[in-house]
């Protein structure tokens, strides 16, 4: 491989494809198309086929659903933190609101899961946005601090006021009609969320979000109401979280205070950091890696949160770019020998 060669040199695989900047491609041959599409297709097809491959292992099919739920939460965190600039440590709030609204719609109004899920997605998104509205003018640290308090307090308030079933939660929620519906609803939601958000952040609206994140004073001076855009960002992100929460309520056929638990706040953050912040796909990959680990660690109880926290700290300190960025870099550095 590394012997000195007179008649050949190494060349990057994407040499002919990439022109000047990211995102502008000049494709001229099917190999080049394949080079670009392979990783993307691998991801999409892999995710779509996963339930079929896992048929012999029903337990892991359920884990796959949980992976998708966490992936939705992680995408929501990633979008809000890295594109809108609001770090929310309280992903569990979305989870709980989505779960409770789905459970209430189902048990009180008798709506089937395929109706409650979209309804509670939108409704929950609206509720979370309204709850977080007073905190939107805050930046960075301050928003993080306040958002952290919401799920912790929400659980306590439900417990203290004894509403929505109090500590018992809401029992007897309908499940999905079959495991296939459950898995494909979730997988398609994840794929759609990634696709739509990736498109959106590179559209003009996404640039405004970037503007709000980089430097909100200039956005104000451009005659744009930043609170509106922040609220819009929170709405999108809380919709994703509520979607996950609603599905979880139907999967477990139960909604309760534990949906406000810390797991739902910390695992998505860990997944995003491990997978690579600001890529959206990275957070999904992070979940695919971390959630099964959590299943292996189930015997150790709460220790798994400690394990996550340690993984998270290690990645933040030593490998802050994350797996996705690292992988992309390496993929783009593939070389081949060419004759001179």
């Amino acid at each position: 491989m590394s012997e000195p060669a007179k008649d050949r040199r190494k060349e990057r695989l994407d040499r002919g494809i990439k022109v000047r900047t990211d995102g502008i491609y000049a494709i001229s041959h099917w190999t080049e198309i394949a080079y670009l599409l392979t990783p993307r297709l691998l991801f999409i097809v892999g995710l779509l086929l996963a339930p079929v491959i896992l048929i012999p292992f029903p337990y892991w099919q359920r884990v796959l659903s949980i992976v998708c739920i966490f992936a939705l939460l992680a995408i929501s965190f990633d979008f809000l933190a890295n594109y809108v600039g609001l770090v929310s440590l309280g992903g569990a709030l979305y989870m709980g609101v989505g779960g409770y609204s789905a459970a209430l719609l189902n048990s009180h109004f008798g709506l089937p899961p395929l109706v409650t899920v979209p309804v509670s997605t939108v409704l929950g998104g609206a509720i979370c946005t309204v709850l977080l509205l007073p905190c939107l003018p805050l930046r960075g640290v301050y928003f993080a601090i306040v958002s952290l308090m919401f799920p912790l307090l929400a659980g306590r308030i439900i417990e203290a006021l004894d509403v929505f079933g109090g500590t018992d939660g809401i029992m007897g929620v309908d499940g999905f009609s079959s495991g296939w519906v459950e898995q494909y609803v979730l997988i398609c939601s994840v794929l759609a969320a990634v696709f739509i958000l990736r498109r959106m952040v590179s559209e003009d609206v996404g640039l405004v979000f970037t503007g709000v994140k980089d430097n909100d004073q200039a956005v104000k001076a451009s005659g744009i109401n930043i609170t509106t855009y922040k609220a819009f960002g929170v709405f999108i992100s809380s919709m994703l979280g509520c979607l996950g929460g609603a599905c979880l309520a139907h999967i477990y056929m139960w909604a309760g205070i534990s949906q406000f638990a810390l797991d739902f706040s910390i695992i998505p953050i860990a997944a995003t950091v491990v997978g690579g912040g600001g890529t959206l796909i990275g957070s999904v990959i992070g979940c695919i890696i971390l959630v099964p680990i959590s299943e292996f660690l189930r015997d150790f109880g709460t220790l798994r949160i400690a394990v996550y926290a340690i993984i998270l700290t290690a990645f933040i300190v030593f490998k802050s770019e994350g797996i996705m960025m690292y992988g992309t870099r390496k993929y783009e550095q593939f070389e081949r020998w060419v004759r001179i």
Partner: protein
Amino acid sequence: MEIIIYGIINSVTLALMALGFTLVYGVSRLPNFAHGALYVLTGYVAWMLMYRVGLYYPIAMVLSLIITGLVGAAMYQFVLVRIRGMAISEIIASYAIGLAILEGLRWGGLKGGTITLPPFVDGSIELIGVSVDYQRLIVVLIGVLLVGLLWLFVNRTKLGLALKGMAQDERAAMTLGIDSDYMAVVAMALGSVLAGIAALVLFPLGSIVVESGYNVLIMAVAVCIVGGLGSWNGAILAAFIIGFAQILTQVYLGAHYQVVVALVAIIVTLISRPSGLFGRQKELEERV
């Protein structure tokens, strides 16, 4: 009468919880989300040293404080110093460390209700018609003493003045020969010790549980936001406001609503006066 006395006790309790957090944030602009974890850690270590190792109570307390201080300093020295200035990473990393400590402790056998520290002095006393434990009086005493000592430390000693300089302008302090990283380590250790002291005087009132770590973090943050982050006078004033508000809601509305007070206080503060009670204009620009 009862309201006033318990209000004061509750306020001092809150102030004790918040002092360490506000010190660290004030000096090095680092929101130490592991604050609550350090609090519980101290209580647990003290308990371990007393009942498993069999040391005398005072020795166990001093040792546990030293250990907590070292843990705080190590946390800064080995982890947080690498991500200084990246606000998001600072929050997430310190929160993650705190979680690791807390959940690790929970796994290691801290499962509520079983372990307690003994009070310093048993019994209670009639105070203007209200019966108060000696321990609660000690809490107030130590709280007042601690604030006084801190004031003396910051305004009268060289190290304290250096910390104050850092708090006002880190770069200017650096040009005057103050080693900002060293000072941040000192502040972190000091903040951890303060959390530890709070733990040692407050834990005898109840049992050592992991949840109190989250409680302390929430209350510390609430007090600091209402008072204006990094401002000591503000923190103490805010502790009194929230403390009395909590007691009043407890008496007139029932204990259920007590948990809501902190959140409402924060939201009202943020809407009406985003810089907090004692925040300065510069900080206002940073946060809004």
